[in-house]
């Protein structure tokens, strides 16, 4: 079989079919991004690269059953996929001429291949092109929703059906979104490269935003019945870890990973056994994942050093204060308000201002928080944001202003689709409407 790679000293024949398919599935999860990124460089086209990588995974099932699972499945798959790409290009010169190639920078950007990140495979070192891949998927010339879809498809290897389900979008809609984005990459010649240092901060922010968006989408589904879409959450954590490995000197990358880990440490306590949403103050802190908290917190001292931290580091610092607090009441609220003040300077978002108002309410009392919310309401930028009336309702409830609280809960309900959140708001609404006087 020409074109089929030689397995590097395999673990020996005799792997059962179950073992082999488990190994292929594992390699799919762990190695997809590496394999596709390396193949895209050779194929010069994302569609061709994807096709070759899918073929390589299919071929692995047969080959590994016969020859045993190779020691380095990623290298085996990469070689197989790259050979297919080279063959396809040789076979079909018309195809190569038709599709504008992804562009190789000249001279090559050294930053994309950190020392030791490449993989020795036979006598060739395959460069690690995963950063090129993710920066291409998250290029600012693509709409945010396209960036998200492409990242899941190309970096995580999810199918269009899976992505459509995760975002509650019809499959043809998602397929069209992915196709349009890929077409723009080739037609507009979006370069397959890591951005130059001058562009890096903005471009990296787009990548981190996409990963964070994946996390929050999985963490709180915008609609539907599952509060946590565990797979999206795991993918986001995987991406954040990957970026941390590939860009060890970027503080915001560490910040994003810390933020996700610290938030995810609370995953098991976000809902009760009936699936009802539990607020931070109601969560059983003894059930928070201490290992994740330790890992997230450990990233922060370094990330906070050297100039003003970015928005992900600051959000992670806030999450760390929550994670370390013995209880909601005993949280260091003044410190949290102080970090929000810095955060608002680097990221002037009304959502941040809303969260700051909640912290102010804890540090200085609900009336002070309510005053801040009033300013935000007057600003009008959060009109459709369900957490604004929800936060307002909560503060009014604490002040015993039942009627106003009930109205705010109704306003929040009108903006909320998520079943668990609706249940929570309805429960609170019942409480305040039944309250005396």
């Amino acid at each position, binding site marked *: 079989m020409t074109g089929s790679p030689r397995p590097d000293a395999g673990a020996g024949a005799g792997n059962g079919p179950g073992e082999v398919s488990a190994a292929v599935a594992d390699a799919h999860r762990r190695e997809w991004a590496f394999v596709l990124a390396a193949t895209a460089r050779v194929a010069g086209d994302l569609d061709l690269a994807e096709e070759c990588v899918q073929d390589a995974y299919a071929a692995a099932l047969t080959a590994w059953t016969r020859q045993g699972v190779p020691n380095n499945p990623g290298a085996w798959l990469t070689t197989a996929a790259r050979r297919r790409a080279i063959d396809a290009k040789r076979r079909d010169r018309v195809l190569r001429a038709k599709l504008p190639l992804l562009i190789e920078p000249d001279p090559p950007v050294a930053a994309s291949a950190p020392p030791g990140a490449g993989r020795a495979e036979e006598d060739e070192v395959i460069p690690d092109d995963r950063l090129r891949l993710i920066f291409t998927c998250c290029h600012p010339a693509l709409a945010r929703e396209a960036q998200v879809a492409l990242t899941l498809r190309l970096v995580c290897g999810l199918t269009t059906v899976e992505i459509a389900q995760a975002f509650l979008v019809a499959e043809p809609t998602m397929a069209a979104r992915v196709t349009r984005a890929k077409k723009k990459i080739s037609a*507009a010649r979006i370069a397959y490269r890591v*951005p130059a240092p001058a562009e890096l901060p903005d471009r990296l922010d787009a990548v981190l935003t996409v990963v964070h968006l994946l996390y929050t989408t999985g963490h709180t589904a915008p609609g539907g019945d599952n509060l946590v879409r565990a797979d999206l959450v795991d993918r986001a954590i995987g991406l954040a870890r990957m970026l941390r490995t590939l860009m060890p000197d970027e503080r915001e990358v560490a910040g994003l990973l810390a933020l996700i880990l610290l938030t995810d440490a609370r995953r098991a306590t976000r809902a009760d056994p009936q699936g009802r949403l539990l607020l931070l103050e109601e969560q059983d802190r003894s059930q928070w994942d201490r290992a994740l908290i330790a890992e997230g917190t450990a990233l922060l001292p370094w990330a906070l050093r050297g100039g003003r931290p970015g928005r992900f580091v600051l959000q992670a610092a806030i999450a760390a204060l929550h994670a370390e607090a013995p209880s909601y009441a005993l949280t260091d609220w003044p410190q949290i308000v102080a970090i929000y003040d810095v955060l608002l300077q680097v990221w002037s978002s009304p959502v941040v201002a809303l969260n700051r108002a909640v912290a102010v309410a804890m540090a200085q009392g609900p009336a002070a928080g309510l005053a801040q919310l009033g300013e935000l309401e007057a600003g009008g930028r959060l009109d459709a944001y369900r957490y604004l009336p929800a936060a307002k309702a909560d503060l009014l409830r604490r002040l015993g202003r039942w009627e106003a609280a009930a109205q705010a809960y109704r306003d929040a309900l009108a903006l909320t689709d998520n079943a668990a959140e609706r249940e929570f708001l309805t429960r609170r609404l019942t409480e305040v409407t039944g309250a005396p006087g």
Partner: protein
Amino acid sequence: MAEYMILICEDESAYATATPDVLQQVMEAHNRFSEQVAETGGKIIEGRALQPTSTATSIRGDVVTDGPFIETKEAIGGYYLVEARDLDHALQIGKLCPARFGGVEVRPIMVFG
């Protein structure tokens, strides 16, 4: 290298009411733009300004109508056809392109065959 069209989309009324001084500044900005493009390693293949949309004539089928195809506040008033390495380079050039009364749209030229 690839070719991109930079479409300059601006508020025509701003030009109609502009002082000679402002128009002079616009001319100078475009002259400077030509030099800046060369400094980035790109190339202007062609650049033209269009007469305002009040001079446009639209044809659909056999029907000839006075005016532009679509009436909008901001209209294409000129273009540059440039050569750039890739989209990032084309966007870098697009950001340099003068368009004080609006903005620009960067479109890749279709390649056949």
